[in-house]
């Protein structure tokens, strides 16, 4: 063994960028080579530990498949399997070409520019958003909105939790009802931190009930696994609500009266009854026997029940309407839909209701707070359906009716309320009440949160979001509208795609449909690899990975764990520049100069990055990316804590207060139990769609949840008798990690990671044995994918489950593109408006398939 006298031996604090958890790292570099990545023990986010993906980053840093130089295509023909004929060009030529195109589009119509991003680059994509905003386009999406992201779930995050996402209180929750998420098991938000915290809760004795078609990473850790037919979680939740409210009479009356619109009087038209003078929603005070505006200081009590008359009209509290509305949704009704026995649904409702301990309190930091140690989690799986809005609504109401929302033990928004960094008061946000008393979120990753909703605009965007303000982020309708803007009366076509770090061809839905929508667009890609999406690119720019670039980071409101401490980190390069790779932020700044956009861009940067005097960017200077990061840090954390300080210390943290974590009892805001404004909004959307001559099914804009089967449920074919679902595993993030050979090595020895989970009996009926190659053919798309059968008792007999987004075919991914490296689920998913939940623009992701043994068994 050679003796190595190290001249350099450094540990560099930075952050991981493999997924959106943004864990903090200490990276060990010896003589210029990165030899180890560890969790930063100082960070409150991941507390010194990492998931396998975080550890594996070294092999992505040094992967020889990485794009190292700018490239342009020489083959004018574009196709999923058509080699672009890449030739190397200089950065100068690349930027000249890009700037010329952008200039032309900006002159003609800036709306023709689309920004395609991803959630895993939590620094470059937000900066690219600022670029796109300045440029003047409203068009952008994160491609995972098809198959990997929550959409309706984030909408309700805004409406009910003042946050993008939510987690169970790991310190105090006693009963976790988990509809299909992997929280604590290697996916969802704050992966590493929550894995530790949920493990503590498990050891502490928290009961975990997992409702999931597959015994996957999440359900494996549950105390009870309840298999369910895909897409029917909403029916289960409706039945539970019915049992709680109408059979057991378990609900938190106090919470409902003071923190929701449950007491608001609703007329027969389904709308609030408002007082004539101030137009405020009315409630009924049973003590004074009269109606009063909800905020009237003389109110002695709020009626939740009953029927009253106001100005001669029938007036009922929203709670009464909800209770009545729920009556048909019995466990017996839900059983054939979900395949969950009625007795089980009833038992779970009872357990949940009992464990909610309504009326009990706990003392934290000297404050007496409601103690409701139950939480209902759901994410992509349960809400990724045509019934997204109404199913998510039912699931959320479970938490609300027992008052377990943002109180100790319950479901906590990440991160709803921040009192700010103590030394500067920056990074402060609090939910506020609007005129109707309803909660408006204090911070949102997009310029307008879903509530109060923007006006319905016609044909403003290339994805229906302008018309449907309840879509919280990326739209599942984007490829549909892009493929046929005339049908949707959009007066322009997308001509250029600024594509930052996403593999949208693989991660949205049917790649063939995506190819058709994007084929004729000039695409500029910042790419780590020549992945499948770059087959549609015109120019590829060599991207610096997260280990090679600088950023302020972890601003994503869902990176911070919901409890413990606030923690903001730096991301800094751990190696010098490799080849010609550059950070997108750097490149965008150069494009800004070339486009003469400096004055406008700096104004937006000051606004969006919260840069304050005396650090604001002035137009007569030109700033590097380092300088901008430095100024943002100083604006937020003070003159002493600029970039240099962060590079040395890695992070700043301070303890969370009880009123930040458990903000609901301290807040005068109310959240909807009854989504009164959905219906009139739906009517506006319908009116606009009719005016434009577009067919849109707006019937799901309802104030109360109901059951609507998704398309796969309604399909009743003997051929396509199984459902295919996708799920996340801790060894892979979407499609981006499949070329990492360490992750490949551990995936290879897990039969589920690269295979297809299928019920033992279901397999036997088809003559399929363990390890057999099988074919899964999609009913809606007709595409077939293949993988090896992993037989298990731990899956619903009607379901096959595919992990992650494997099945790469790009010839430039030497590890990932081999046979047997997972399946690309998205081939099974159709693109079309029929598959989209119109109110939230969520893409449906369960499909009917045929499964058979492949004729050729290698």
């Amino acid at each position, binding site marked *: 063994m050679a003796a190595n006298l190290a001249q350099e031996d450094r540990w560099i604090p930075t952050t991981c960028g493999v997924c959106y958890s943004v864990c903090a790292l200490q990276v060990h570099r010896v003589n210029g080579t990165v030899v180890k990545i560890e969790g930063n023990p100082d960070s409150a986010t991941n507390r010194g530990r990492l998931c396998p993906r975080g550890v594996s980053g070294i092999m992505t840093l040094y992967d020889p498949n990485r794009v190292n130089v700018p490239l342009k295509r020489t083959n004018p023909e574009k196709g999923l399997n058509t080699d672009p004929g890449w030739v190397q060009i200089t950065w100068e030529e690349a930027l000249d070409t890009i700037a010329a195109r952008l200039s032309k589009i900006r002159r003609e119509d800036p709306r023709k520019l689309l920004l395609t991003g991803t959630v895993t680059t939590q620094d470059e994509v937000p900066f690219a958003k600022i670029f796109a905003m300045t440029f003047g386009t409203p068009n952008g999406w994160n491609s995972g*909105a098809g198959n990997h992201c929550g959409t309706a779930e984030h909408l309700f995050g805004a409406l009910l939790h003042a946050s993008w996402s939510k987690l169970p209180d790991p310190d105090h929750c006693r009963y976790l009802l988990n509809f299909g998420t992997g929280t604590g098991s290697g996916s969802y938000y704050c992966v590493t931190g929550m894995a530790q915290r949920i493990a503590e809760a498990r050891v502490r004795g928290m009961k975990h009930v997992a409702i999931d078609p597959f015994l996957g990473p999440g359900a494996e850790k549950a105390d009870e696994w309840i298999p369910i037919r895909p897409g029917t979680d909403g029916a289960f939740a409706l039945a539970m609500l019915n049992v709680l409210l109408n059979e057991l009479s378990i609900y938190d009356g106090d919470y409902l009266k003071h923190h929701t619109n449950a007491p608001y009087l609703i007329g027969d038209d389904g709308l609030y009854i408002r007082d004539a003078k101030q137009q405020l929603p009315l409630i009924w005070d049973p003590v004074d026997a009269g109606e009063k505006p909800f905020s009237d200081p003389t109110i002695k009590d709020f009626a939740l029940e009953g029927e009253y008359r106001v100005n001669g009209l029938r007036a009922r509290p929203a709670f009464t309407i909800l209770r009545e509305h729920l009556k048909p949704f019995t466990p017996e009704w839900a059983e054939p839909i979900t395949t969950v026995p009625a007795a089980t649904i009833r038992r779970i409702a009872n357990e949940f209701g009992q464990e909610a301990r309504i009326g009990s309190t706990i003392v934290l930091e000297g404050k007496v707070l409601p103690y409701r140690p139950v939480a209902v989690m759901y994410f992509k799986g349960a809400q990724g359906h045509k019934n997204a809005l109404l199913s998510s609504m039912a699931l959320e109401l479970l938490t609300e009716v027992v008052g377990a929302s943002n109180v100790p033990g319950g479901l906590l928004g990440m991160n709803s309320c921040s009192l700010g960094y103590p030394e500067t008061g920056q990074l402060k946000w609090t939910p506020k009440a609007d005129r109707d008393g309803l909660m408006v979120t204090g911070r949102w990753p997009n*310029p307008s949160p879903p509530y109060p909703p923007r006006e319905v605009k016609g044909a403003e965007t290339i994805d229906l979001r302008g018309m449907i303000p309840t879509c919280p982020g990326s739209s599942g309708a984007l490829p549909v509208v892009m493929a046929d803007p005339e049908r949707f009366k959009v007066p322009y076509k997308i001509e250029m795609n600024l594509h930052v770090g996403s593999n949208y061809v693989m991660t949205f839905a049917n790649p063939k449909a995506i190819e058709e929508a994007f084929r004729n667009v000039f695409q500029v890609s910042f790419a780590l690899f020549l992945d499948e999406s770059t087959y549609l690119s015109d120019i590829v720019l060599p991207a610096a990975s997260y280990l090679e670039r600088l950023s302020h980071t972890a601003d994503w409101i*869902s990176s911070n764990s919901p409890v413990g401490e606030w923690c903001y980190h730096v991301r800094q390069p751990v190696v010098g520049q490799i080849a010609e790779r550059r950070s997108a932020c750097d490149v965008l700044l150069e494009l800004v100069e070339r486009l003469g956009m400096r004055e406008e861009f700096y104004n937006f940067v000051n606004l969006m990055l919260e840069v304050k005097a005396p650090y604001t960017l002035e137009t007569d200077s030109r700033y590097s990316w380092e300088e901008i990061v430095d100024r943002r840090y100083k604006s937020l954390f003070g003159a002493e804590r600029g970039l240099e300080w962060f590079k040395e210390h890695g992070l700043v943290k301070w303890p969370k207060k009880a009123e930040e974590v458990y903000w609901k009892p301290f807040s005068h805001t109310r959240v909807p139990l009854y989504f009164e404004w959905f219906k009139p909004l739906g009517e506006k959307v319908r009116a606009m769609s009719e005016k434009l001559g577009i067919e849109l099914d707006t019937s799901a804009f309802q104030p109360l949840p109901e059951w609507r089967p998704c398309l796969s449920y309604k399909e009743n074919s003997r051929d396509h008798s199984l459902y295919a679902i996708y799920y996340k595993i801790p060894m892979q993030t979407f499609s981006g990690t499949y070329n990492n050979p360490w992750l490949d090595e551990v995936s290879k020895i897990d039969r589920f990671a690269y295979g297809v989970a299928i019920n033992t009996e279901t397999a036997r009926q088809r003559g399929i044995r363990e390890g057999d190659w099988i074919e899964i053919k999609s009913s809606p798309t007709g595409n077939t994918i293949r993988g090896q059968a992993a037989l298990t008792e731990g899956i619903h007999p009607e379901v096959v489950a595919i992990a992650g987004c494997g099945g790469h075919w790009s010839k430039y991914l030497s590890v990932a593109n081999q046979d047997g490296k997972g399946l690309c689920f998205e081939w099974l998913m159709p693109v079309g408006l029929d598959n989209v939940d119109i109110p939230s623009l969520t893409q449906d992701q369960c499909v009917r398939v045929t499964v058979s043994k492949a004729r050729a068994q290698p």
Partner: protein
Amino acid sequence: MGRQGRLTLRVSMHNHNGMPFAPFLTIGKESLMQVEVRFYGFVRDVVDTSPLALQMPDCCTLRNLVDLLVQRYGEKLHERLYTNAGELEANVRVFVEDAQAGSLEELLGDGQKSSAEVKVFVLSATAGG
């Protein structure tokens, strides 16, 4: 037009090329201030020039100014900036001399200043999560 209802205002407007527009209201007596309006963001497809130089009485409110801009640029700008109830959309931020305006009823000037710089930002949500 104008805060006082019956009082009408004369404004002289020039576009970026210095071409004057015909005044469309009669003269008021307040002192005039130079107002420079700059537009940023998702509004470039509606507004054909930025910055725009105006002269307005210093008793004008921001609402007066924005209404004037809407008159200049048409219904499309109205749709881009306003809710149906006549308030600014949540993604529109107006800054007067680097301070964000809290309400459209704020006065443009304070009687002392002879000029004001107004920035109208129209933010767009170009990607979600």
